[in-house]
């Protein structure tokens, strides 16, 4: 790894201190026991099939003043910011592209992961997430409306506590809507972690980590699935699975995820409606202010005129 | 001149060849269907694939009215060398190789025939065991012949080195990887043997000017030998593809 001269670097061989804590050496079994108790309640008090709430208190638009559209989503500890900018002409391209292009970048904050510090340079995971995000958004954006132009979508993950791809897709969907980019449908996404016969809907980082760890007992299902859906059109726009699962498990997971994605829809709709209402009011307010200003100006002009006339 | 010991007391080289012996060359034309021309060539353990696209319409930025633009890319498979390569191309060595290939092949191609066109020549080294450049030139020539691109003559490349047998200078033909690694001098020549023209000369390490002539003439001899081998391969390839009825209908 070459040294990054554009940033300040720490010593080369520094190690996160949690490698030396007792926590670090826990076995698969211990970790599993921690996640869920005998009543089927997860560490954070949710049941297995309960997603973290994405109502208007935890998701909002208009986060970033400098962007055309932006969104912020908070799923308990997972925190994601997204901004969308005005389409711009594609640079260095000889061929005409009839469809507009999406440029997606997903980045983790250096301090976002509980286990270790992330390097600044984009790693394979970030690149894969960026591709997944683009894949999920492409079918829903009316790309034929901006030929030869490119739309930049940036997602920043401030804190990663599981389901960050799903959160990124949801945030990007909201931000696109906020930026008034024409879309065929709202896009919603949800994740699922499978450990044996348990399906953790909207998993936390600890749950995800265990799901991709190699299980002690051979042959059980394990892994992660993220699915993005256009709920009104009933289309799957992206599906990503890793781990190892049999067919039945995948079929069941697909059903569960589809339901979850549909559940998110009213939340997103509510946020967007509220957004429109707010901006209407804001506009009214602005117009009012402008009128007042104009009136004041006119009054001043009158004053001057009278002064001039008098002088 | 105290050099590395490249010849045994019996006068044999490290891999058992005689000083003027080429490594075994095996080749085949037309290994792929998509390119206009393609060829595979083995020179000892060095294995090279070449593909030719074109002549086709040159991109606007490259287009030249004077003649065809020859575009070469030299790339080595990551598993081609003893130690794994990190990148197949884009490093300085392969850029330089691409440039040298272009020089040698442009000399052979009748470029003036095809204004506003471009010929792409892509080399993929599958296994490198010394003399990858020579094998690349030879493979590219075959691929050009397969593509039906007009050539002045075959372009062939061969390397030669210098060794001593007692006090007798004994130039070595077609240097292999062990001999390259032993640190002897390597003279690489790309030429059009039937015309006697030299398209490229490259010398690594130093060589006393007195011996330059004999090393060069050995390398040229190698080029001529290779031309014969290539020519035979081309004729065999033609024989396979030509059925009797064609001649009648012409």
């Amino acid at each position, binding site marked *: 790894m070459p040294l990054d001269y554009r940033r300040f670097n720490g010593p080369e061989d520094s190690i996160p201190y949690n490698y030396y804590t007792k926590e670090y050496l826990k076995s698969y079994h211990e970790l599993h026991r921690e996640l869920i108790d005998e009543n089927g309640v997860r560490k954070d008090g949710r049941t297995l099939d309960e997603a973290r709430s994405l109502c208007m208190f935890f998701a909002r638009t208009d986060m970033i003043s400098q962007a055309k559209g932006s969104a912020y989503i908070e799923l308990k500890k997972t925190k994601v910011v997204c901004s969308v900018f005005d389409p711009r002409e594609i640079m260095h391209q000889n061929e005409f592209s009839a*469809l507009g292009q999406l440029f997606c970048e997903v980045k983790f904050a250096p301090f976002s992961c509980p286990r270790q510090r992330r390097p600044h340079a984009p790693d*394979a995971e970030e*690149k894969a997430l960026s*591709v997944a995000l683009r894949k999920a958004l*492409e*079918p*829903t954006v009316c790309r034929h409306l901006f030929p030869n132009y490119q739309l930049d979508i940036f997602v920043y993950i401030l804190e990663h506590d599981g389901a960050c791809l799903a959160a990124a897709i949801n945030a990007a969907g909201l931000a696109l809507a906020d930026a008034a980019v024409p879309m065929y449908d709202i896009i919603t996404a949800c994740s699922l972690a499978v450990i044996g016969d348990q399906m953790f809907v909207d998993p936390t980082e600890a749950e995800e980590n265990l799901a*991709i760890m*190699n*299980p002690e007992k051979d042959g059980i*299902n394990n*892994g992660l*699935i993220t699915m993005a859906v*256009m709920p009104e*059109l*009933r*289309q*799957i*726009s*992206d*599906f*990503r*699975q*890793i*781990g*190892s699962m049999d*067919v039945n498990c*995948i*079929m069941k997971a*697909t059903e569960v995820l*589809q339901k979850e994605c549909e559940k998110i829809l009213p939340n997103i709709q509510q946020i967007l409606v509220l957004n429109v209402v707010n901006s209407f009011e804001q506009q009214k307010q602005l117009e009012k202010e402008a009128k007042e200003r104009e009136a004041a100006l006119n009054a001043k002009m009158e004053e001057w005129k009278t002064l001039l006339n008098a002088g | 001149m105290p050099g590395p010991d490249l010849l045994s007391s019996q006068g044999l080289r490290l891999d058992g060849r005689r000083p003027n012996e080429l490594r075994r060359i*095996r*080749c*085949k034309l037309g290994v*792929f*269907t*998509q390119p206009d021309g*393609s060829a*595979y060539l*083995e020179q000892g*353990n060095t294995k090279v*694939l*070449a593909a030719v*696209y074109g002549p086709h319409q040159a991109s606007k930025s490259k287009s030249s009215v004077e003649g065809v633009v020859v*575009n070469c*890319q030299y*790339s080595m*498979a*990551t*598993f081609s*060398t*003893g130690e*794994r390569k990190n990148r*197949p191309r*884009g490093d300085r060595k392969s850029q330089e190789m691409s440039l040298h290939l272009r020089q040698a092949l442009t000399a052979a191609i009748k470029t003036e025939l095809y204004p506003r066109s471009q010929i*792409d020549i*892509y080399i*993929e080294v*599958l*296994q490198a065991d010394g003399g990858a450049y020579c094998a690349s030139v030879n493979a590219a020539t075959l691929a050009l012949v397969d593509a039906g691109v007009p050539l002045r003559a075959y372009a062939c490349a061969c390397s030669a080195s210098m060794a001593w047998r007692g006090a007798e200078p004994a130039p070595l033909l077609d240097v292999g990887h062990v001999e390259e690694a032993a640190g002897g001098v390597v003279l690489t020549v790309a030429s059009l043997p039937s015309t006697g023209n030299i398209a490229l000369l490259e010398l690594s390490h130093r060589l006393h000017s007195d011996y330059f002539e004999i090393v060069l003439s050995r390398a040229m001899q190698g080029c001529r030998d290779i031309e014969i081998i290539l020519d035979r391969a081309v004729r065999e390839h033609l024989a396979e593809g030509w059925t009797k009825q064609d001649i009648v209908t012409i």
Partner: protein
Amino acid sequence: MAGLLLSPTEKIYILHGVQDDYRSDGRTNIDYRPMELETDVVSHASGSARLRLANTDILVGVKTEIDVPKPDNPGLGKIDFFVDCSANATPEFEGRGGEQLANNISNMLQRAYNSSQAFDLKQLCILEGKQCWKLYVDILILECGGNLCDAVSLAVKAALFNTRIPFVKAALMDGGSVDFQLSDDPYDCKLLEAGTAPLLVTLCKIGDKCVVDPSAEEESCSVISLIVGITGNPKYYSKDAIETPNFKCKCSTIGMNGPGSVAPETFKNAINQGIIAANSLDEALGRALLRERQECNNFKKNSYGFLK
């Protein structure tokens, strides 16, 4: 790859063909084109394979290196995939033109091989926490005639099956350093267990139906394809096969490619279709590899490579 340019009417012809389950070369939607396989083609690699599927040509070399295991997985070795799209395949790949496609494929492979049920990295361990083997699986795409993913995964599995790892005796010395003893005999090595290695199946959605093994023309008719990675069945890869009664092939990865989307029903059907296809691919590959190993043992095998 940007894909071939096709006229709308050509596309309609292909689309109707898929609907009729009769494609333009006479195949049904679940048929593969004939393939040709050769292993042990690169002498600088520990294992290698070349696979030709119609005119899709893939060369894979596996190289081994000794490395230090990751601190969170001290008992496991490492495997790394690198795909290179050679410009020999198409001028578009010149320079860094094929990089995106290459990354897509290597990501798919990396994910498919991620699970211990797909590929057991324990067999690459030399000394727990200290030393392990790292496999570099280098894939060279020499010609593209559609369906790269499937062909690559077949070639990779064949190359891994062909890979030999030297026996190493390692002992921990005082002060934490490791002492190696590599056997001098080049034949003193073990073969990798690659029976469970996953195969990727691309299901290309054309109209409402999905086809396997799409040709380049068919690929450019499709806006979305599904790629499923299915683990292999080790019984096809050993002569004295012991039938494991409950053996079930599993999905080790699912991904989607292309700008389109797919309805849930089509999606489910496609996965089932993929599993069936993967099973027949696995069986055919296993048979071919065993046959080749037989030839090799009888010293009948010649290296053909690109000659002949």
